[in-house]
C-alpha cells in the first residue's frame, strides 16, 4: 500500500499567479463561472473568492498595509485539506466520499446524489455543488494522476514551488526546516495542520502561515461535525421521554377524572 500523500503549501513563496487554479481546471475540465464573464470583486486580486464545485483551488490575497507602500501582501493557494479525520466522509450517506489508498479523501461523482450534507460538514468550506454534474465536488488530489504515478496538476504547475506534493512524512520534515529557516530570519511563521495530534488528526494538505489562521480564512480549531452527535441525540431522546410522560400523564388524568365520575373535561368549547 502506498504512503499517505498530500500537499505542503509554503505561503511565503506564493506569488499569487493562480497557475494552480487554471492547471486544476485544465486537468479536471472544470468550467469557468458564467463562462468567464464576471464582475470585478474589488477584493484585492482575488476574483475567485471561494473554493466550490468548480473552483478546487483558490488563491487568497490579503493586503496588510499601514500606509502607502508600507506593509505586506499575503497570498495563499487554498485547497481541500484531505483531513485525516474527514467530516465530509463521516456524514456522507451514500458512501460517495471515500478515503483512498493514498490517505486522500475523494468524492465519487457517480455515487454522490447531491444531498449536500458534506458541504455543511466541512469546517473549511471546501465542498460545493458542481452545477454541471449536480453533485458535490472538490479537489481529488488528482487521484487519477496519482494512480499512474503522476504529480497533481496544481503542484506540478506551481512556478515557485509554493505548493509542494509528496509523502506526508517527507513534507512535514521539509516544512519544519522551512519554519526554522524563517524563524532564524525573524519571521513569525507557523505550520497549520501539520500536527497529527492537532485538530482532525492532522491535514494531508497543510500550510506554512505568517499570520493568524483566521486571516487566511482558516478556522483556528476545525472540528468533526460528529462532535455534537452524542450530546444532541441524548437531549433529543430526553425531551422525547419528557413529552411521552406528559402525554401519558394526560391520559392517566383523564381516566382518574372519569373514575371520579362526571366529565370534568367540561364540554365548554366544542369546535
Amino acid at each position, binding site marked *: 500500500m502506498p504512503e499517505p500523500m498530500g500537499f505542503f503549501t509554503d505561503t511565503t513563496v506564493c506569488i499569487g499567479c493562480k497557475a494552480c487554479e487554471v492547471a486544476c481546471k485544465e486537468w479536471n475540465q472544470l468550467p469557468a463561472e458564467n463562462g468567464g464573464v464576471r464582475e470585478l470583486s474589488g477584493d484585492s486580486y482575488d476574483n475567485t473568492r471561494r473554493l*466550490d464545485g468548480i473552483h478546487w483551488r483558490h488563491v487568497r490575497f490579503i493586503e496588510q498595509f499601514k500606509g502607502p507602500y508600507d506593509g505586506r501582501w499575503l497570498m495563499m493557494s487554498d485547497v481541500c485539506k484531505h483531513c485525516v479525520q474527514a467530516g465530509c466522509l463521516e456524514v*456522507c450517506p451514500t*458512501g460517495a466520499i471515500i478515503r483512498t489508498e493514498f490517505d486522500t479523501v475523494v468524492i465519487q461523482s457517480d455515487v454522490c*446524489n447531491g444531498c449536500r450534507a458534506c458541504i455543511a460538514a466541512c469546517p473549511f468550506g471546501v465542498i460545493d455543488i458542481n452545477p454541471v454534474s449536480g453533485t458535490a465536488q472538490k479537489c481529488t488530489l488528482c487521484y487519477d494522476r496519482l494512480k499512474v504515478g503522476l504529480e497533481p496538476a496544481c503542484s506540478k504547475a506551481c512556478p515557485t514551488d509554493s505548493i509542494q506534493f509528496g509523502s506526508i512524512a517527507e513534507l512535514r520534515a521539509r516544512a519544519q526546516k522551512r519554519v526554522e529557516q524563517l524563524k532564524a530570519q525573524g519571521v513569525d511563521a507557523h505550520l497549520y495542520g501539520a500536527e497529527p495530534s492537532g485538530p482532525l488528526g492532522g491535514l494531508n494538505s497543510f500550510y506554512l502561515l505568517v499570520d493568524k489562521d483566521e486571516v487566511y480564512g482558516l478556522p483556528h480549531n476545525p472540528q468533526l461535525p460528529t462532535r455534537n452527535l452524542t450530546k444532541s441525540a441524548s*437531549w433529543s431522546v430526553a425531551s*422525547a421521554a419528557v413529552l411521552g410522560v406528559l402525554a401519558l400523564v394526560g391520559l392517566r388524568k383523564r381516566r382518574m377524572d372519569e373514575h371520579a365520575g362526571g366529565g370534568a373535561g367540561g364540554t365548554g368549547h366544542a*369546535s
Partner: protein
Amino acid sequence: MPPDTFFSGAPHWTWFIIPYFFVGGLAGGAYFLTSILEWFGKPEDRPVVRTGYDVAAVGAILSGLLLTLDLGRPLRFWHMLFESANVPAIAFKAWSPISVGAWAILLFGLCAVLSALGSRAEEGRLQMPALRAVGGVVRGDVAKLVAGVGGILGFFVAGYTGVLLSVTNRPIWADSPWLGALFLVSGASTGAATLILLAPGRGAAQRTLDWLSTFDSRALAVELLVLIVFLVSLGQINRVWLSFWGFLLLVGVVGFGILAPLRLHAKRAPLAQAAKLVLLGGFLLRLATMLASEGIDRYRVALGGMGGMAP
C-alpha cells in the same frame, strides 16, 4: 476573530428542506401521539387515531418527496439506502443523521401507511381487495405493534432533523446540541395542533381533543424552555440574531407561535385558533434557524483586504 463554524460553506438547504423539516416534524409528532392513543386510548379516541395515521402517512410521503426533490440528482435518491456500487449492500452510517434519517423516513412511512390502511379497513373504507387484505392484517395487536414502532420512528423523524443540523460545521446549527430537542418538541406541538385542526372533521370526541390541547400547551411550555436553553447555549454566536431572522424568532416563534397559543389555551379559547398559531410558529422556527445560518458564508478578511493590520 470569528468562531470556527464561520469558515464553512452553506449547503443551500432551503425551499424544499424547510417545508420538509416542518412536515416531517408534525407528521412524526402526530404519529407519536396517535400511537399513544392506539396503546392506551379508548374507543372514543379512534377518530383522532385515524386522523393521526392519515396525517402521518401523507406527511411521510410528502417528506420523502421534498427530500428527493432537494437532491442535486433526485433519481439517485436510492443511493442513500443502498451502495450504488454493489447493490443490494445497504448504505447505513449509524453516526450520520442524514443516513439514519433516510432509513427512518422510509420505515416511518411504511408504518404510517400500514396503520392508515389498518384504520381504513377498520372503517371498511377500502375498496381495492389487495389493500383490503393488507389493511385487514393490521388490526388489534399487529396494529399496536406497527403503531408502537412507527410512533418511536415518528419522534425520531421529528427530532433527527435538528440533530442533522447540529452534526455539521455551520454557524448556529453546530454551535448548540439543543437543536434536535427543539425540533422534536416543536414537532410534537405542531403534531398535536394538526390533530386538533383535522380530527373534529372525523368526529373526534371532545375528551380526546381536550387531552390534545392539554398536551399541546405542555409541549409549548417545554418548547419555550428548550428554545431558551438553545439560545443560552449559543453564547456569543447569538449576535447573528441581530437580524431579520432574530426578529422573526422573537415575534413569530416565541410571540405568535408559543406565548399566544399558550394564552389561548389558558383562556380556553376555541382550539383551532391556537392550533393555527402553533403551526405557524413551528414553521417559522425552522425558517429562522435555517435561513439565519444559510445566510452566513465562508469568513474572509474584509473587502480589499482592508482588515488585517490596517485600521
